[in-house]
């Protein structure tokens, strides 16, 4: 009787492959009603957490969380000794966003008491977990990559301003310098929209361009014809007026209570209105609109969505232009300054080397000379080898020995392990070459999906055995939420599949198709059920054939 129950429980548990409240609730209730088999249920869940593919582990941990919180004794007691192991195991497979979610989960564990008013898990275990996530540097501010690039850009420009202020301090320069600092803080602390991002990017580009030009030709007469960067100058001042305040406070973020003390300037100066951080971006964005760098198209209907487009400056920033000398010495500054900012040891070492090299390769002749006769120093060669001291014995790939490198090294090691295990399983790894992508898919493809560090782990996932024959009929693939392209293609026969609206589920669906096994949830890769079954039949026939051939050879 209880064996049946366990089996059913396991089956249901295996269906928890997505974040499904109903499944979690159902499994929690069964656990609640059957405390007599609590130990077996706990074992099932623990095993499933370790065995599940990385992007499903969290959902099973959520189930465990649900059972411990709603039922408590004896489940939370059974799990107490292993809560650290389970938590850290799941944690390491997740991306930053999900890791942040796990930090929240931990916080609920710390506050939560069971029905019998006991702590959910032993305090010392939770403290251990807390130390672990702190070491790993979580919770993290997640800044999109494009934004991060922008921050790097600003970090590079700032030292140029610092230098200039030293040699020739003008109020305008000061203002710009402060504005940049503010912009950087803002970008580092919040996510801005792509349109704003693009605008800021372009704006910065122009500042960079102008500064580089100006530094080469200090006399105003020699300044090239008005560039868009100059057009944007007045708006910058408008914006700077808003940030003068924080500058006086030694670049502290604006705080209302400290304003009256520092604002002891002439009474004619109107009190600067308190501007929340986001307004700096909006302000800057509006300035860009005013300057004509960003074009705004909006239907004359209230509430309609405007569309923004960039107006590109006519002269583009080119680091190879005649002021080579200047840009090189500035590069030096940039590299020196940025090497001190939040970079890994390895990146710092690399910057040091590059700095020396850029000095030696200023002109074409110097460059040719450098290529021909420079004797690579050991510090230069080490960048390719010993500066990443962890070398994989299986494939020779190298990793740094900082936290990031060690994490990657471990994930890499696990990956070899999984693959070897899979390949050593008989018939476990029959595979064929895929079709190549078309231009559109290739242009939008991200190579991270091919690597062992991919948290979605899609390529690794194996189709479950029971998937071998799938019944047509009720099968469909829901069009991913952010997808606007309703037309798709079967990966096997390449025939077009158009999405139709499915009333029952209230979603657009590709009918009679399944998602290619192992693909992530939002993947567009679909296959006709008929094609999938056909291909599997042939594959198993082929496998049999292969084993026969082997036997003959033996």
């Amino acid at each position: 009787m209880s064996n049946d129950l366990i089996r059913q429980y396991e089956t249901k548990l295996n269906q928890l492959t997505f974040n499904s409240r109903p499944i979690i609730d159902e499994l929690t209730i069964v656990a609640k009603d059957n405390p007599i088999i609590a130990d077996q249920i706990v074992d099932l869940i623990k095993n499933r957490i370790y065995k599940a593919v990385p992007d499903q582990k969290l959902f099973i941990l959520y189930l465990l969380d649900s059972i411990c919180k709603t039922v408590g004794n004896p489940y939370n007691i059974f799990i107490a000794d292993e809560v650290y192991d389970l938590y850290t195991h799941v944690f390491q497979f997740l991306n930053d966003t999900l890791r942040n979610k796990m930090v929240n989960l931990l916080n609920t564990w710390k506050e939560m008491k069971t029905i019998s008013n006991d702590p959910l898990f032993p305090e010392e275990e939770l403290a251990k977990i807390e130390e672990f996530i702190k070491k790993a540097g979580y919770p993290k501010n997640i800044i999109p990559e494009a934004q991060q690039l922008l921050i790097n850009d600003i970090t590079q420009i700032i030292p140029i301003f610092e230098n200039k202020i030293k040699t020739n301090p003008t109020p305008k320069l000061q203002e710009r310098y402060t504005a940049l600092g503010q912009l950087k803080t803002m970008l580092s602390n919040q996510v801005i929209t792509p349109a704003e991002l693009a605008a800021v990017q372009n704006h910065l580009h122009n500042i960079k361009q102008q500064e580089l030009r100006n530094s080469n030709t200090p006399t105003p007469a020699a300044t090239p014809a008005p560039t868009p960067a100059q057009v944007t100058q007045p708006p910058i001042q408008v914006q700077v007026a808003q940030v003068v305040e924080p500058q006086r406070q030694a670049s502290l973020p604006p705080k209302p209570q400290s304003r009256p003390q520092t604002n002891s300037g002439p009474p004619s100066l109107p009190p600067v209105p308190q501007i929340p951080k986001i307004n700096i971006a909006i302000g800057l964005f509006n300035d860009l609109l005013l300057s004509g760098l960003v074009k705004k198209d909006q239907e004359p209907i209230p509430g309609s969505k405007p569309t923004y487009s960039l107006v590109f400056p006519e002269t583009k920033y080119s680091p190879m232009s005649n002021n080579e000398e200047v840009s090189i010495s500035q590069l030096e500054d940039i590299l020196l300054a940025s090497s001190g900012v939040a970079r890994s040891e390895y990146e710092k070492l690399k910057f040091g080397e590059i700095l020396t090299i850029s000095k030696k390769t200023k002109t074409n002749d110097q460059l040719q000379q450098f290529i021909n006769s420079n004797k690579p120093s050991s510090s230069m060669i080490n960048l390719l080898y010993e500066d990443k001291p962890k070398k994989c014995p299986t494939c020779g790939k190298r990793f740094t020995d900082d936290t990031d490198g060690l994490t990657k090294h471990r994930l890499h090691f696990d990956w070899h392990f999984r693959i070897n295990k899979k390949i050593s399983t008989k018939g476990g790894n029959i595979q064929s070459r895929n079709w190549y992508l078309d231009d559109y898919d290739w242009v939008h493809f991200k190579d991270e999906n091919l690597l062992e560090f991919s948290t979605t782990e899609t390529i690794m996932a194996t189709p479950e055995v029971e998937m071998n024959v799938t019944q047509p009929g009720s099968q469909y693939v829901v069009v991913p939420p952010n997808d606007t392209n309703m037309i798709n293609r079967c990966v096997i026969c390449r025939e077009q599949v158009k999405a139709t609206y499915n009333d029952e589920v209230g979603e657009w669906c590709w009918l009679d198709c399944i998602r290619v096994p192992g693909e992530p949830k939002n993947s567009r890769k679909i296959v006709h059920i008929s094609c999938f079954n056909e291909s599997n039949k042939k594959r198993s026939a082929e496998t049999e054939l292969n084993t026969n051939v082997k036997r003959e050879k033996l």
Partner: protein
Amino acid sequence: MSLPGFESGIIIDEQQIQKHIITIPIGSEWRIEIPFKSFFKFKVISGIAEINGTELPNNTELQLSGTKLAIYSPKTSQIGYFLVDNKDSIYDNGDNEFSEYLSNETNMSSIINLSMFIESRRQLNKSGPRILIVGGKFSGKSSLAKILSSYSLKLNNSPILVNLNPRDGVFSLPGSLTATPISDSFDIEAFNGYGLTTTTGTSRQNPKQPIVKNYGFTNYKDNLDLYKYQVSRLAVSVLSRLENDPSVNKSGIIIDTPPINNLKNKDDVSLIETIITDFQIDIVVVIGNEKLTLDLKNKFKHKKDSINIIKINKSQGCVELSDRFIRMAQEQSIKEYFHGTYKNRLSPFKIDIDLEGLKLYKFVLTKDFLSTMSFLPAGDEETENTNNEENILDKYYQILEDPSSSNLENSLITITHLEATNNSPGKDLLDTSVLGFVHISKVDDEKKKIKVLLPFPGVFPKNNYLISTNIGYSE
């Protein structure tokens, strides 16, 4: 006792590997030629050794066959090796014997310098450098492209490796032009030392994901117009990818090319100009050819502020390959497309299909096209104007008339991404990319059936346009 998951499945014969041990001193290369009829089994016992910039693992047995290459030691290394017969080899005659020698005259210092200069350019500019490698026959262009890619990878980049030499199949078959982000190491054990693309299962090395363009011949001069057209189309895709992919954009492009010795031929000049313009090249690396360097500097004088032209010495280790060797290598890479490597076996699938209804085109040899043109009766230009779309295609692809055993058997067919319609595909057929390749092993002229080898089991994509290549192959 063996740990689960760690059985490699490959038994290292310790005694065998101890038979021959070679020490490669720091900064030296061990140049070896391995015939197709042998497997060269080896492992790095100590130190650091690499092949074309890809570092070899220590104490893991590796295997090579049918290749000529150098193992370089950035730090003095010891290598144990032995040879076994490849019983499946079909190349008995005309194959070489194993040969090897050590040399301390390499151009590796220059290549390291170049790599570091490239890295400094990545830091200076928003987008990474776009590097074009040019040089004569057997000057080591592909080796240089591999080393620059590998070192870029080691310095935390993933550049796009573009192959414009249709002689070699880079992550594809000979006759195609490809672009592939190098986001992980090359598989030095794979044929030609590139590796696999994505599969339906799990491979021991992370696969690569290329975009593949149709060319259909192994010599770029066979139809220069088509070749240049495809180079430009590939450039459009590559530059779009850069726009969409910050990490690739920051890393740049590395382009390998067919051999060009000098700028005497105006076709070669216009080809280099096309590549430089289309890919927005900013670094040209010329291997071992002073004359070509000067010619290029002269030719692109007006761009000297935006293009660096750098000369690099040819490695002493470059060897001439016989036509026969090249042909065997091409066959080997076709075999690998369907069957995989010895560590990653792939299962292709044989299927019989009707010849009827297939939309078959063929690649056009320019000299054939010109000769048919000269036989056209005078005044035929009018038809050319009335039927423009179809004629645009004529000098690149033509419908394969009367497909039969004589023009299809033992040939490779390109399947395009383009779905067939009732109208002429026109320019669309030129602009599409390669979905994959199939091999036709048998044509039954009576029953109008063909036996096809598909890379993976499933339905033949018979609704797509197919283009029959001039590349023969027999299983």
